[in-house]
């Protein structure tokens, strides 16, 4: 006789029942949980449950040197780590009044935009997989790998580069690197047509994604929605343009928007953003060889570097939305306080809870993925 390994669940004597999405579920992005109460097929209540990825980053950063924290910050958003590094560096540079050399700024932009394309390729693969379509995921992740190869060549790391330091970047672009970036971009540009045919204009996908998880403009503003999710509601806001950092004002790029605010619109905005990112990188490739100069403003002995007392709030546009770092220094060797504002904290908790209610069981996973939330940003 086998032990009964399972105790039957006593469902409440109503037609309502409860279902857990996560923390380990293909319908949820990463280690994150959504508990829903269903009435038939309709969600009547939804609660998120985070903290599975909590590491106490903000506490850890208070215990480490300014320069050591560079190794910590990219871990906060795994699919798109570069904006985290850049944002932290920007905040520290602002505190310490360091001017970043122009060449380093251009290289940072190059890296940021490559990271954005990589994150979007990863994103729509996941979104496709929630609708049961695995081919775009297989293609997208494999194409993203080509970009990771570029990162590896530039920085030495596939995902976490630890490349942006306060004051500049660690090393120069290798010889012939820009040509390889250009080739890879040509390839990805060509592949976008395949993705269009396979996924973005796929009739069944369009039918399923249209009208799912709609946010209107007022709600988007009220809920602090940022990034592509905000632009999918028709609001044209981008930190790169409206609160500019690095050399973005010198670059020519559009901010794609969609009007509908549903899952389809959010996906399409990201699709269009990839084109814009490719455009930006092409400009960087063209301009970078002519920009000479140092790569780093030297900082004093990094192991005993005291950053002047003060506070700084730096913002960067990542592929998920507005990333912000609030860094407080009391003039010590370590940050006094670092507060990280991940865009997903809004999207994955408040927005998701509101969008899930009233949606169908079949659409929950799509809602989650189309918001492109990144759970470690919530948990930190």
């Amino acid at each position, binding site marked *: 006789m086998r032990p009964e390994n399972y105790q039957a669940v006593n469902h409440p004597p109503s037609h309502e029942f409860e279902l857990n999405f996560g923390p380990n579920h293909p319908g949820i992005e990463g280690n994150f949980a959504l508990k829903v109460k269903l009435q038939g097929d309709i969600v009547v209540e939804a609660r998120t449950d985070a903290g599975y990825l*909590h590491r106490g980053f*903000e506490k850890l950063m208070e215990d480490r040197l300014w320069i050591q924290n560079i190794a910590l910050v990219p871990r906060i958003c795994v699919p798109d780590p570069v904006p985290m590094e850049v944002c932290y560096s920007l905040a520290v540079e602002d505190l310490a009044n360091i001017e970043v050399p122009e060449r380093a700024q251009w290289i940072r932009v190059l890296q940021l935009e490559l990271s954005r394309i990589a994150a979007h390729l990863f994103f729509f693969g996941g979104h496709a997989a929630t609708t049961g379509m695995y081919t775009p995921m297989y293609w997208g992740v494999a194409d993203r790998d080509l970009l990771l190869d570029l990162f590896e060549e530039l920085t030495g790391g596939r995902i976490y580069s630890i490349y942006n330091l306060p004051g500049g970047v660690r090393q120069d672009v290798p010889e012939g690197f820009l040509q390889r970036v250009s080739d890879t971009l040509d390839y990805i540009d060509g592949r976008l047509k395949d993705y269009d045919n396979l996924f973005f204009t796929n009739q069944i996908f369009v039918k399923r994604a249209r009208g799912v998880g709609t946010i209107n403009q007022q709600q988007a*503003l*009220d*809920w602090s929605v940022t990034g592509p999710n905000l632009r999918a509601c028709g609001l044209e806001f981008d930190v790169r343009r409206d609160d500019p950092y690095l050399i973005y004002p010198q670059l020519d790029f559009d901010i794609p928007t969609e009007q509908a605010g549903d899952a389809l619109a959010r996906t399409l905005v990201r699709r269009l953003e990839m084109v814009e990112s490719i455009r930006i990188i092409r400009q960087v490739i063209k301009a970078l060889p002519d920009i000479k100069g140092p790569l780093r403003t030297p900082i004093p002995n990094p192991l005993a570097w005291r950053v002047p007392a003060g*506070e700084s709030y730096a*913002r960067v546009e990542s592929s998920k939305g507005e990333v912000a770092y*609030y860094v407080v220094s009391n003039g010590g060797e370590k940050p006094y*306080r670092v507060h990280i504002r991940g865009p997903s904290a809004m999207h994955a908790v408040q927005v998701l809870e509101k969008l899930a209610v009233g949606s169908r069981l079949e659409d929950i996973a799509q809602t989650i993925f189309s918001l492109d939330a990144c759970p470690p940003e919530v948990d930190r």
Partner: protein
Amino acid sequence: MSIAHSQNLNVLLQEIEGIQLTFHNPRRLRADIAAEALPALLALLRGRASYVHLSAISCVDWIDDNQFELVYHLWSYETSVLISAHIRVPRDPGIYLSVFDIYTPAAFFERDIHEMFGLYFEGSPDMSKFILTEWNGPPPMRKDFDSEKWVMETFSWQQYHPDWLQELEQQGGGIVSTPESIRAGNRPMENKS
């Protein structure tokens, strides 16, 4: 544009008593204000000055002053200025008002601050634990909580001198140089056995 607009804003902000404004740079405005006046300031900024986007609420634990500093980062899409409203509340008893009725996203940040710092917000919709549901200790982000000490008391560590290595060392093998010996300038390793 932002400078011109800030003139109007300045006029508007004079309605709040005891406010101190400092421009850190043209797009970062710091406002120091008494804790009681904050809800009025936020209502004014949101209602009459287009600051609709609550970017974040940060909490800083100034343990030497026995105070928590709360920083409300507000962004205006129209004027492209970020106002950081700073207030100080006493660490004891650690209670402040929620601004959930003015800014919906505040609910998340307030809940987060409550479990990380133990600062209670009256009127916030949900103050239950969110991230640290399995945590029974003190609010970890307070400066008086020593994370490293807690870890050392709670966890044990992987052995870096396992049995098989000890056997190897008895036969004369083992690790040639430890990290410490390299760091101190390639001194010959002391025999630990």
